[in-house]
């Protein structure tokens, strides 16, 4: 029971990190597009790439949390 909760806390912390990261990316991209609407396409591509990279790091954490959960439960 306790094991599951700790893994859930880990996943939650990962979500916080990813949230901050993707929020920052979105903020930067929207500001950039507002200043230079003609560069919107380039900015969007780079934004998606950066968001995917940030998301991947949080997913690493989720995988580790899952692994920890299943290993700890045994």
């Amino acid at each position: 029971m306790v094991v599951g909760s700790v893994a859930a806390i880990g996943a939650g912390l990962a979500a916080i990190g990813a949230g901050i990261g993707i929020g920052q990316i979105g903020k930067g991209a929207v500001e950039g597009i507002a200043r230079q609407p003609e560069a919107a396409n380039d900015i969007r591509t780079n934004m998606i790439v950066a968001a995917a990279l940030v998301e991947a790091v949080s997913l690493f954490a989720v995988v580790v949390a899952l692994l920890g959960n299943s290993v700890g439960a045994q």
Partner: protein
Amino acid sequence: MMSKSVKSLLVAVFSLFIIFNSNVSFAQENGKEHHPSENTEHKGDFDVTGFILDHVKDHHSWHLWGHTSIPLPVIIKTDKGFEFFSSSKLSGEHHEPVVYQGNYAYKLVEGKIKIVNADGTVNEEDSKKVFDISITKNVASMFLTVLLLIWIFTGVARAYQKTGVKSAPKGFQSFIEPIILFVRDEVAKPYLGHQYARFMPFLLTIFFFIWINNLLGLVPFFPGGANLSGNIAFTLALALFTFIIVNVNGKKDYWKHIFWMPGLPTPMKIFLMPIEVLGVFIKPISLTIRLFANITAGHILVMSLISLIFIFESVFASAMAVPFTVFISVIELLVGFLQAFIFAMLSALYIGMAIEEHHDHHEDIPVI
């Protein structure tokens, strides 16, 4: 506007109906099955984790509906040589694992083929001899993707042979051509420069292979439904291709930057060398885990949302769960494309870093 809201109402009602029906059949299934080994089954004992992990894992048969599934060939190698048989021989009438007598007595234990003793217990010592190279659900799904890719691209290539590249694309060509141009202009050219043409076949193959696998994984019924790109062995194999291509094509500058970083004091060079060497291996590992985790997370999310209905044991939970599932599925369509794009793009980036001849500008962006 009016017709739109009517349409969405219809969709909601229809999905409620379907969920209600499947709920009933699920309850019936629970009532029918009586495995003495399992917990006493009464309503509310729905094992969510088991249900989700069962979907995420690989199988020796391809489940269609209810109690119907397609048996797939089992190929195993032991010290007595190869053996081929159908996986239907490993499951009995009520889908419980049964012992199949080949060179050894085989039985499916938690999805893995194990050798059992005469009294039915698993012989761990002998089971180590089993080398399982069966056509499992994932492998069958991969063959399907390969056939699909061959069918699509030989057709498109033949059309180009007939009409040439200058004339306007026709039929399926007009769907594929923009995507190929997208890969060329957004993935290959920015990172590979003038040498992009050499790596286009690899990048296109990897992009379309991952994309079609992701899309097939989102189809909930037969031809799809395998969690192939959410299988870590599959993604590892793809990342290995990138790893080999990067290191085989690595120029002098690439190796110099790994082993003896120019423009740094010697203690720093010694300190950086192990880190850079590790980085060579971490890059494909991060490619592996990114694709694996993204796709698996998507599958788990969809399954969890559907499971909510069975956790709350109420038809009304589907009013919330179904729209959410549709929403997540649409996001997964985007993620499926995005991950294929990211995989191809990072492969291009790593290859580009390896084949760069001269370093006029030092902007080594750390990409995990």
